[in-house]
């Protein structure tokens, strides 16, 4: 049975034609090598762009999923102000609200490294609004940390501090210019890279001291809603209750985080590269077409009995071998570049440089759609660009071509 299949396959696939195609490629090895390199590079660039954007989108989704459903901020003259902690009790009275927590946090600019740390206050016995914080409170006793003036930092923060020779403690400069020495009590594993890169968790009282916060006020209030479909309704109710507030929902945050990651610019660049890629192939084809030798060869082949489809099959094999191998190599190189080397240079283009220095590793996201997309943008376009001029010549009278 297998033998019959092999015979059938042998009869369908003309190995002589494939051999001829390989020989034809080797006869123009320098030109074909150049095309192979260009195609490989473009595939590599395009695939890398897609891999990076996919990873960033994955990271973004993880971050957004960990965000609070509603954030209530106090606004005065268009600017954010500290909000009264007493408002928490009133928000809790709104039906549909399952929890409300006053957060004490802020950005601390560390001039030496030119980065912002997000300092978040944690109260040991309060409900935590993030899973990662809940895990931290299970692992670390914040009452103890309060007594020792200690903090728990993300891995990225630890790295930045170490680079500035702060290995055991860090000196925060308070608004009045005095220093607050806080020891590093531990390192926490965050749910997302973004968190671990810029976040410092410390007892609420320490945050209040570093930022000179009023004890009756907080940075904002986060609200949990039992039914996610009611987020907008609850948000409206809070707004009605406190006219001087800005209500930010998960959807608003998504938009804001998208801007931080700037993945839209990544997609834009991807489209741009696609255009250049297509443009390059078309220009190359238009400008070079077929040389007189190539035209004559097609004429000779027809004169010795090749049909138009024999010529086109041979040209198909030639272009398929070049484009498919360059595609495979490009994708392989791109996988290594993005996921093993963490996409040096390219990553910085896509990851927005906002207040945070987002020095995170790209998570591995294998997306078949991306591979198909790049395949259809490269291989068939190249094959078509090769077949069309060959078809034009092959359909002329052989006599005309040979003469």
């Amino acid at each position: 049975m297998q033998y019959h299949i092999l015979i059938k396959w042998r009869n369908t696939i003309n190995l002589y034609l494939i051999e001829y195609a390989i020989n034809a490629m080797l006869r123009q090895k320098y030109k074909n090598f150049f095309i192979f390199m260009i195609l490989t590079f473009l595939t590599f660039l395009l695939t890398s762009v897609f891999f990076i954007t996919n990873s960033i989108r994955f990271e973004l989704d993880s971050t957004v999923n960990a965000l609070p459903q509603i954030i209530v901020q106090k606004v005065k003259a268009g600017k954010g102000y500290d909000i009264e902690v007493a408002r928490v009790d009133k928000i809790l009275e709104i039906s549909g609200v399952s929890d409300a927590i006053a957060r004490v946090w802020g950005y601390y600019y560390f001039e030496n490294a030119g980065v912002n740390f997000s300092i978040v206050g944690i109260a040991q016995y309060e409900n935590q609004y993030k899973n990662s914080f809940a895990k931290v409170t299970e692992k670390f006793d914040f009452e103890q940390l309060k007594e020792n003036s200690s903090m728990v930092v993300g891995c990225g923060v630890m790295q930045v501090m170490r680079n500035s020779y702060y290995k055991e403690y860090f000196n925060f400069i308070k608004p009045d210019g005095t220093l607050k020495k806080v020891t590093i009590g531990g390192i926490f594993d965050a749910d997302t890279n973004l968190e671990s890169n810029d976040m410092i968790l410390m007892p609420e009282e320490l945050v209040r001291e570093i930022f000179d916060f009023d004890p009756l006020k907080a940075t904002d209030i986060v609200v949990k809603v039992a039914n996610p479909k009611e987020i907008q309704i609850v948000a409206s109710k809070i707004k009605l209750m406190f006219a001087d507030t800005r209500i930010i929902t998960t959807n608003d945050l998504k938009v804001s985080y998208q801007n931080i990651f700037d993945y839209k610019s990544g997609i834009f660049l991807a489209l741009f590269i696609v255009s250049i890629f297509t443009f390059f192939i078309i220009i190359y084809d238009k400008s070079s077409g077929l040389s007189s030798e190539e035209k004559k060869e097609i004429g000779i082949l027809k004169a010795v009995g090749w049909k138009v489809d024999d010529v086109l099959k041979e040209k198909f094999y030639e272009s398929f071998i070049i484009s498919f191998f360059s595609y495979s190599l490009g994708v392989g190189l791109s996988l290594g570049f993005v996921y093993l080397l963490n996409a040096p240079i390219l990553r910085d283009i896509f990851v927005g440089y906002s207040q945070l220095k987002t020095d995170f590793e790209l998570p591995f996201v294998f997306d078949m759609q991306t591979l198909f997309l790049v395949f259809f943008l490269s291989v068939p376009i190249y094959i078509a660009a090769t077949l069309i001029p060959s078809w034009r010549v092959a359909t002329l009278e052989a006599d005309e071509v040979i003469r």
Partner: protein
Amino acid sequence: MSKIIELKEITKIYEVGKHERIQALENVNLKIDEGEVIILKGVSGSGKSTILSLIAALSKPTSGEVLVEEKKISKLPDNFASIYRRDNIGFIFQKYNLIPNLSVKENILLPLIPLNLNGSKVDEKIQSVMKRFHIAHKQNTIVRNLSGGEQQRVAIARANVNNPKIILADEPTANLDEKLSLHFIDMMHELHSQKKTIIIATHDPLFFGLDFVSREIEIHNGKIVS
């Protein structure tokens, strides 16, 4: 002997550019029997090569019909014309029309590639034809490194690898010295003995008056004059 080729009222006009037209043949009528050796003679541009090209279905007549074994080949669609050539015609071109950077063997293989025959059969055909035309010892040599005479033997071997009924040769000795030209004539003689129909377009006097030649036909300004 039965008729194998017939040209009926053939006119061929080449269009050069948008406005220029060159009349290569005008109302040509010709019948050729199987096994005949025909010499088409005449000066350059007289229309000899055009007749060969029409018989090989490499081009189509402007008007009239070309019949081979009673089949109208002048109106064949492109793919059928290729199959017709593959099965019936062996064409030896003036400049040989070999692919210069392929080996002797690879050039001779060309007409067999679309047939997708099994390896041993292909090898058998190639070896046999190479031996017959004394080029087997150069089978792996790249064609551009061969002498004119050797290249012509490759062209003859390629033209015969499919064992066609009709051999067409266009100015076959134009690039050869007398010795090699005589050798070519010997090879044509041998093919004639195998009952091949041979048509040679030439103005080389060596071909005139040969004993195995059936007819000499003179073409002048696209017309048969004698």
